[in-house]
């Protein structure tokens, strides 16, 4: 009896050792049919994956729907530590340095070098982090734009603002003509949104100088953006409740918010969160600081990355490249998922001839978007964007609640970011 238990224990131990052995034999792809696991969140991306599965029965991709953004970064970091994770994941551009720094992403340069020419240079630079490795295949970008309720703009006799000065004036005019409506809101909940606005103003939060990081979240350009919104919030010209809350959804639906400073993927969000306003929205370029040289920033935008712990990296890289460069796949990404593809060819492809279903009247939606996208500022993300983002939520949330200036909150974000980098041992200049 006792011997039996001992034998079983030994057998179980051997089993564990074997399992562990399987897990650590990275890199070498197994022969024959295999399954790839893929964590992603883009709406309806499973439909695009189905197309792959139909034509590649021996390389079946199994999708697992995930929460968006920061939550997925958290999950990837944790699963990498635990040694269990997917083969592929959808990763936002700003999370790439964090994940590379934690050795979560595989370098797919051997397979991906061939498709470098398919993407704009600025986008490709974000997946190489300026080095020799390629850590992801770009999927979509998120150039920022201004969305407004065309019907309500007409009703209140407003014109679409082309500069931030005009935006402020329009916000005030709207408040005087309709005291219960707002042109927009300043959200302490969406650091990515604020980062995009800072990019437009010429902010550059991280940069690399030799083997030293420089952090300038508190730079002149970003201060200008913070001071601008601080003023609007203080005088009550814009709302100050966070985005993506039940209250905000209701405000978009019932016209309390008649504008939204957002990105190219906004139609999908509006369709989901404010379905009752179909056809009433229109899109325009982001208001400018300098109308003579139009610029925009990116809010979001993502990639398909292969995990370094994957045992099927080659097959995974093949899928990632197919998903983001194959004409059929990219067209499906546009029509099914509603993303704005990063691949250059796709931006002039037939899939973008039709406007998004939620904007039936704006025939030139994608041609306009393409023009706007070409003015996107380049940006280097740092290795602890998560920390900066949490600091933004805390510091800006506190400043808004207390009704104080937002500019000092910016230096708090800068300090928290640098402190964290120094504590981890990064060289910060």
């Amino acid at each position, binding site marked *: 009896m006792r011997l039996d238990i001992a034998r079983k224990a030994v057998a179980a131990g051997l089993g564990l050792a074997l399992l562990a052995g399987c897990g650590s034999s990275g890199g070498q792809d197994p022969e024959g049919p295999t399954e790839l696991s893929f964590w992603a969140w883009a709406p309806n991306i499973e439909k695009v994956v189905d197309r792959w599965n139909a034509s590649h029965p021996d390389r079946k991709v199994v999708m697992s729907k995930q929460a968006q953004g*920061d939550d997925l970064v*958290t999950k990837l*970091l*944790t699963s990498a*530590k635990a040694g269990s994770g997917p083969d592929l994941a959808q990763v936002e551009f700003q999370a790439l*340095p*964090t994940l*590379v*720094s*934690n*050795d979560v992403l595989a370098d797919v340069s051997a397979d991906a070098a061939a498709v470098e020419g398919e993407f704009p240079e600025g986008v490709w630079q974000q997946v190489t*982090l300026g*080095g020799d490795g390629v850590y992801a295949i770009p999927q979509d970008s998120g150039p920022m734009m201004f969305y407004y309720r065309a019907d309500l703009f007409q009703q209140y006799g407003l014109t679409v603002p082309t500069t931030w000065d005009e935006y402020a004036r329009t916000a005030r005019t709207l408040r005087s003509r309709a005291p219960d409506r707002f042109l927009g809101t300043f959200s*302490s*909940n969406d650091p990515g949104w604020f980062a995009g606005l800072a990019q437009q103003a010429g902010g550059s939060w991280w940069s*690399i100088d030799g*083997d*030293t*990081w420089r952090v300038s979240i508190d730079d002149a350009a970003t201060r200008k953006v913070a001071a601008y919104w601080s003023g609007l919030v203080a005088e009550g010209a814009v709302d*100050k*409740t*966070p985005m*993506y*809350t*039940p*209250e905000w959804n*209701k*405000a978009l639906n019932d016209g*309390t918010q008649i504008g939204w400073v957002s990105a190219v993927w906004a139609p999908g969000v509006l369709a989901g969160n404010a379905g009752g306003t179909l056809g009433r929205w229109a899109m325009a370029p982001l208001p400018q600081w300098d109308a003579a040289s139009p610029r925009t920033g990116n809010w979001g935008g993502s990639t398909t990355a292969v995990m370094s712990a994957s045992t099927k990296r080659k097959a995974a890289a093949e899928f990632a490249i197919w998903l983001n460069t194959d004409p059929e796949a990219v067209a499906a990404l546009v029509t099914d998922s509603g993303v704005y593809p990063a691949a250059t060819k796709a931006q002039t492809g037939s899939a973008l001839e039709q406007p998004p279903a939620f904007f039936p009247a704006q025939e030139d939606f994608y041609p306009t978007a393409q023009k706007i996208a070409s003015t996107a500022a380049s940006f280097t993300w740092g*290795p*602890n964007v*998560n*920390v900066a*983002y*949490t600091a933004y*939520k*805390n510091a*800006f*949330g*506190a400043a*808004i*609640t*207390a009704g104080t200036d937002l500019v000092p909150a910016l230096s708090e974000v800068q300090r928290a970011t640098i402190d*964290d980098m120094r504590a*981890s*041992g*990064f*060289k910060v200049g």
Partner: protein
Amino acid sequence: MPSTTSRRRRAGAATPYLFVAPAVVLFLLVLALPIAYTVYLSLFRTEVSGLGLGRGSRREVFAGLGNYARTLTDSEMGAGALRVLGYGALLVPTMLLLALVFALLLDEDRVRARGFSRIAIFLPYAVPGVIATLLWGFLYLPSTSPFAQLLDELSLPEVDLLSPTGIYFALANIAVWGGVGYNTIVLHTALRSIPRDLYEAARIDGCSAWQVALRIKVPLVAPALVLTTLFSVVATLQVFAEPTTLAPLTNSLSRTWSPLMKVYQDAFARGDVHSAAAASVVIAAVMFVLSSGLLRITRSRAFGGER
């Protein structure tokens, strides 16, 4: 014959160990081992070399008690502890007083629909904290809240439960709503186990229902009250799900509002499991000292009669 007895005795000697084994194995595997691993993790830190972007640019180095020193001197951690104390000062007395009142009411012989009331009071406990918070979150947000609309209709001043002070009441309210039922059931069960003839004797002596409740029932359920207080204090110190779920809805709640939220941010947003492990050990130690202190103070009084 003698050989059989001795064999049986030997088998008998092993029996207690066999019975204890599952508990011991489970304890070692799911409690002692993780705790030991946490302590082990807390003694290291990650060191980045250069830009931290290449392979192998991060390595673990021994940090001694450095993580503990950082946790203990962290101002956000201290502020979080103070916030949770304020929240607990609101929550625990309110919840237990309500639970005691409900338990006493349920115990009254005259009460009707006891079964229904008991379930109605207990039901919120079955709602997971995250769901409860989302539910209440809708009720707190002025534009989706029927209460805000009602106040507006009656031209009463707006109550902003998501303001910096209001948030304490908002959070305590969610916890009271979810926790009263559980505590009521515990106290009610304790009340039911009191021999009924005590009440009869009291009534013959001329006690009113009030006096029976205050002089007989409450003192006799004191041990159960101590227990529920202890559980409530521990749950309060561990508050995490409610503020985490409520934070995206308002500017007033930081992502590091409670110490456990700070631990979560450290471990998962900053990716620093080492300082998160140190903070967890500190929180566990504080909790242990607090609860054993609380037990020690109250035990002498509450359990005094039983000795």
